């Protein structure tokens, strides 16, 4: 019972972090078929903003992180991705790699590659008891924040006119444009939302890891990208469920694999991913607009 609560909390908090990252990637993919690898740098730069604003009240530091991530997302869209909007998805993906590498190297160049310590929300670094079980407060907060954000985003997509436009664009971009959806606005809002999500991920992740360095967002981004593929590229519920699933499976593998096999945790994880894709090549929740048309 004790162990079960702990594993459930571990799995949900890690899954939540992946889900928020996957959602940021999925938002962009759904409206413009761009697998944005530079999403990692949105997280990284937001974390650097938190570092720069260390010592300021949390509200200020977090607002700064949001401003930085949203601005960076919108600027990369304008400079790097808008000119390529009619290009092949592969071309856009390569462009996103370029943006990602450029920002990483700029960070190394200007701020150095040595990790910098930060502690954005010191009060979260403590253990709380659920019955006899000790869990870190941060994990509970992570789970709560993920739940609230997912709910808010769902309401935004379902209840607002902009949400409707985004869903229409995700389903069939050309058709949506023909019916009067403003393509540029939808895409810019998608990038801004993705930047906002990245800032939240940066705050939660920095509070957990306690440092920032130029490659901070990369491992998160890679796992979250796998999650969007499992969930179904272009499907937002798919991205969320994929993220949760990867977090849960990783935690369970780490918890229950025998010690000799634990170093090969990733091999088991990716074997499961391959299996999932063999059974459902388009992911668990294929996006309707994405099917190959002959």
């Amino acid at each position, binding site marked *: 019972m*004790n*162990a079960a609560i*702990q*594993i459930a*909390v*571990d799995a949900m*908090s*890690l899954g939540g*972090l992946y889900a928020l990252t996957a959602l940021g990637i999925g938002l962009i993919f759904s409206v413009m078929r761009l697998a944005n690898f530079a999403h990692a740098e949105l997280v990284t730069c937001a974390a650097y903003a938190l570092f720069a604003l260390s010592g300021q009240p949390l509200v200020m530091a977090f607002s700064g992180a949001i401003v930085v991530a949203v601005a960076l997302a919108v600027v990369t869209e304008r400079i790097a991705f808008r000119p390529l909007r009619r290009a092949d998805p592969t071309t856009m993906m390569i462009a996103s790699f370029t943006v990602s590498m450029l920002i990483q190297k700029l960070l*190394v160049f200007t701020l*150095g*590659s*040595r*990790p*910098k*310590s*930060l*502690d954005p929300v*010191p009060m*979260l*670094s*403590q*253990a709380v008891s659920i019955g006899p079980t*000790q*869990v*870190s407060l*941060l*994990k509970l907060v992570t789970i709560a924040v993920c739940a609230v954000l997912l709910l808010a985003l769902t309401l935004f997509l379902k209840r607002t006119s902009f949400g409707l436009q985004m869903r229409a664009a995700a389903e069939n971009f050309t058709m949506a444009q023909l019916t009067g959806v403003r393509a540029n606005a939808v895409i810019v809002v998608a990038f801004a939302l993705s930047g906002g999500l990245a800032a939240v991920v940066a705050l939660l*992740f920095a509070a*957990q*890891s*306690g*440092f920032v*360095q*130029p*490659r901070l967002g*990369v*491992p*998160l981004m890679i*796992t979250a990208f796998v999650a969007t593929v499992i969930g179904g590229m272009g499907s937002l519920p798919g991205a969320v469920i994929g993220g949760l699933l990867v977090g849960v499976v*990783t*935690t369970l593998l*780490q*918890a229950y694999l025998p*010690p000799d096999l*634990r*170093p090969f945790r*990733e091999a088991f994880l990716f074997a499961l991913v391959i299996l999932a894709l063999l059974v459902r090549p388009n992911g668990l929740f294929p996006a309707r607009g994405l099917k190959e048309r002959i």
Partner: protein
Amino acid sequence: MRYSVSMLASVVTSLLLAAAPASSETVKFGLVMSYSGWFQPIDGSTIDGAMLAVKEINAKGGVLGQQIEVVSFDNKSEPLLGADGALDVIGKGAKAILFPSDFDFGAPGAFVAQQNGVLSFSGASDPKWGVAGIGNLAYSMSNASQAQGALLAEWAFETQGWKTAYVLLDNTIFYTKSLCGSFATRWKQLAGDAGLLGEDTFLNSDPSIDAQVSRINGLETKPEVIMVCSYAPGGPSALRQIRAAGLDQPIVSGESMDGDYWAGTVPNLSDFYVVTYGSFYGDDSDPAIADFFKRYEAEYGKRADVSYGLRGYSAVQAWATAAERAGSVEPAAVAAVLDTFKDEPLAIGPTTFTPELHISTTRPITLVQAQDGKFSAVGKATVREFSLD
């Protein structure tokens, strides 16, 4: 025909003679290191230490009356570029080269140096940096990782009196694997198999080690000490997550967690013990090491934040000492003297090499602790039993 060959020979001879005076003015020492990129924070102070040694030795008249000239190459934190770097500095006349402080990072260049008959030094803590892994011209200034692991086990069990341990291994690099491996082996010899309550692994880039921490938290009997084999940034982050989960046991760690530059990651860190080459917090019991860090601070205008500068300094010092004694800077002659080093008093401490083993094992090593976020020296310790396998 014969006439032209002899003419050619005389031209070549005169060219060589003409070149000779120029090359006899200085003797070249190569630095093929990570001046940039993600490995730079690790190599940076090693480079600073080596440059300080060159400056001080030159001020005293150099090596065999020749000034040391440094020829450098930036491998940009790309291990394979080290091979290009080795060729580059050998082409410029380097007789010995200092490579990055990790076997995987330094080896590509060191193999090239070995093939060209040039000495290769490193701060790698892997005994493969020597005869077995690279060749008879490779020397490491570190204490072998296996000796560090065994020493930590002996110190924790015998000096501190902790009876149960848990091993948490960052399974990313060779150093951490052999460190934790030898700790576990030595711990079981001392405390019995039952004294090791468990072993677990993580990766440096893992976003979270929640599951690993929960496993420790779920143990019936909590360990009295946790051995963490990792390096920044994943290592400090692991400490943070261990402490955040309410585990406040003492934590011990190897030289890759040296330094206080990451201390902000784990605010108010207490009961943390790490092996280093010397305490740069102004309290090392060895006056020579304390003095080294004073000179380092005076030279670079900032206090050292890792002890690795001692390794860079000692590499140049070892080479210069051996060359003086050999009366030659030719690599084979210098190596022959290095192989006879017996408790040679280098900056890093008494250093012994044998024709078979080109890394220290029993050199006393400094233990540093963190209490309430403040680092200070605990003392020196020497390993008694270990295995290099």
